[in-house]
């Protein structure tokens, strides 16, 4: 970018023209297209920024825009705000002009209350951008506009309301938090990967626990956005596909102030990620292992986990009858352990592997995947991933049958449990993960040995 252009941009923002400051602010030459930069320059500095990643569905986009604007009008009347819409492909409608012409009367009524103009900026790509590129674009815009509080929301969320968006922005804007993770009302058998693996394991390792590491809505400060932007990770496959957990882990493993905010029910996103379990494991467990690898200098020395403040009620659980095929889940576990024996033997500690083979032989009614065995299994997988004992993608996939075993055990154990009872069990699992942390560190630091 030419010096002349830098000075022009700096002048437009009304910010001090310190050369280094401007250079760092506009360093992302390759990310921001000229058109996007032009739109951002016309906005100037903002207090609030909400980013949405459009999936090309005009109706959901329109609903999201409406909810965000309404949230600004109701909760942040005096603040300068901008909505950044990132999308691409044939169906992406830029600034969702449909919304602009849609409810004209209602919009006029809303803007009548407004003290500030709510800006809309559209980042158009020729093809739908990856989640990583979309987030990077939004973070760059937040950094450039010096936004104080930012939020990511998904247009696919069917129950996106103004209050929900305010719940993500308020803790950052008014209480100076740097990262706000969502909390939801969920069915007690929904999100078992998060409950039994991602949350307790990330809490034990990174010493601060966030229940929803993988969510398509969260809040963050401009400070965290700048810190994330400065990391040289954007070319990594894990970041391109699911960058949200990396951002959460970046926050909890550094000195950023983090909290969780209750948002209400978690409805399955119409345009959200696929529920193919292999893809989910690649993007979540693979990503968590990658974060452990890339941030080992910060977590290896961490001693005790700290709690993260929760705003509003804790996670709520419902218990409507669920149509689950328990027998099939158990059969898939049993079959998986038998078929993948050579692979598991190269990943697991011999003792852990022997115990898993022992429980496979049990009847369904007597089966239980104990927390101690589950924790050691996961730590063996994490250490083997670190040492790359087999192809890392294969290693993550080999965990799926064992997760099914744990899921079956959980379903059997908690068929009649109350939310409070389940919470106690979940807490004891978290404690078990923390208690076994030295086991992980020992395996992690051990030299790779060739198993014959």
């Amino acid at each position, binding site marked *: 970018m030419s010096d002349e252009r830098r000075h022009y941009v700096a002048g437009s923002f009304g910010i001090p023209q310190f050369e280094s400051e401007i250079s760092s602010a506009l360093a992302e030459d390759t990310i921001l297209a000229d058109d996007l930069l032009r739109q951002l320059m016309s906005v100037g500095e903002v207090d609030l920024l909400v980013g949405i990643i459009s999936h090309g569905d005009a109706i959901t986009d329109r609903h999201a825009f409406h909810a965000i604007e309404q949230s600004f009008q109701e909760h942040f009347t005096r603040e300068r705000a901008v909505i950044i819409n990132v999308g691409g492909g044939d169906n992406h409608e830029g600034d969702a002009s449909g919304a602009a012409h849609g409810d004209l009367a209602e919009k006029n009524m809303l803007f009548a209350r407004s003290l500030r103009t709510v800006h809309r900026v559209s980042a158009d790509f020729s093809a739908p951008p990856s989640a990583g590129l979309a987030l990077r674009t939004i973070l760059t815009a937040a950094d450039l506009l010096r936004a104080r509080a930012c939020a990511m929301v998904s247009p696919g969320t069917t129950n996106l309301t103004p209050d929900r968006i305010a719940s993500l922005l308020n803790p950052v804007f008014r209480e100076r938090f740097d990262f706000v993770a969502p909390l939801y009302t969920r069915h007690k058998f929904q999100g078992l990967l998060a409950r039994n693996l991602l949350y307790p394991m990330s809490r034990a390792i990174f010493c601060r626990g966030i229940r929803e590491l993988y969510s398509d809505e969260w809040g963050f400060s401009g400070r965290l956005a700048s810190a994330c932007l400065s990391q040289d990770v954007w070319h990594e496959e894990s970041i391109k596909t699911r960058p949200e957990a990396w951002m959460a882990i970046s926050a909890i493993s550094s000195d950023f102030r983090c909290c969780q905010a209750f948002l209400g029910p978690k409805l399955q996103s119409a345009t959200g990620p696929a529920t193919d379990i292999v893809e989910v494991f690649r993007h*979540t467990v693979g990503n968590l292992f990658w974060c452990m690898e890339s941030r080992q200098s910060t977590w290896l020395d961490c001693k005790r986990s700290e709690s993260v403040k929760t705003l509003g009620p804790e996670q709520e659980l419902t218990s409507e009858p*669920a149509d689950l095929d328990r027998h*099939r889940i158990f059969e898939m576990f049993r079959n998986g352990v038998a078929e993948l024996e050579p*692979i598991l033997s190269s990943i697991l500690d011999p003792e852990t592997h022997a115990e898993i083979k022992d429980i496979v032989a049990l009847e369904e009614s007597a089966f239980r995947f104990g927390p101690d065995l589950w924790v050691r299994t996961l730590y063996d997988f994490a250490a083997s991933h670190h040492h790359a004992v087999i*192809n890392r993608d*294969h290693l993550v996939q080999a965990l799926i049958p064992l997760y099914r075993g744990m899921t079956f055990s959980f379903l059997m154990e908690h068929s009649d449990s109350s939310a409070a009872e389940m919470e106690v069990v979940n807490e004891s699992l978290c404690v078990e993960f923390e208690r076994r942390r030295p086991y992980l560190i020992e395996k992690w630091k051990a030299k790779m040995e*060739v198993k014959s």
Partner: protein
Amino acid sequence: MRQTILQGLEQAYSNLVRMIADFIPRFLVMLIVIVLGLLVAFALKYILRIVLNLTKLDRVSEEAGASRILRIAHFTSMTALLSRSIFWLTWFGFILIGLSVLGVAGLQEQISRLFQFLPEVFVGILILFLGLLTANFLSRTALLAAVNAGHRSAKVFSWSIRFLVWILTISMTLEELGVARQTVISAFSIIFGALMFGLAIAFGLGGQDLARQLLERYLGNTKKAKDNEPQPL
């Protein structure tokens, strides 16, 4: 008569002495070349081992699944395999050079032919090794995909893929070495064609319902059947 015999013997003796006098220096040169080759081979092996340890090749090999194949062949690691290979190749080359110094009639020609054949042997070994690696990787991919999709006969899928890649690799290696080229190509075409034809008949006639279901699932608009598993996230 007696004189002629004595002259002949003297001639033979002097020829023998000349041959021995001619041969011994060449033999000594051959021994020197072989011993020198041994030292050079040891040095190269040692240097290569250090370089490969620095580049952490064993870790890459373990990740790619190559080490498992090596262990079957009783090699401890990729570094050991490569350093031993370089040792034997170097020494073998020096032995051939040493033998050529002897100047034995007919041997020269055989040695030069062997030297010409060496690149093909090397490429053949490389094809074989890469083929075994590919077979291992693809069969493991198939095994994991089948297990996670809940198929009961996951090992059959896995071994079918491994077997197909092995056949392809062996055919390519033999073709590279020029061993019965026409026979190998014909045999491969017949085996591969028969296998595919057999599978097509088994799938299309024997498993009509399964074929219909699969085509409907992958080509039609019907959504993938739900497995009734809890939502992981």
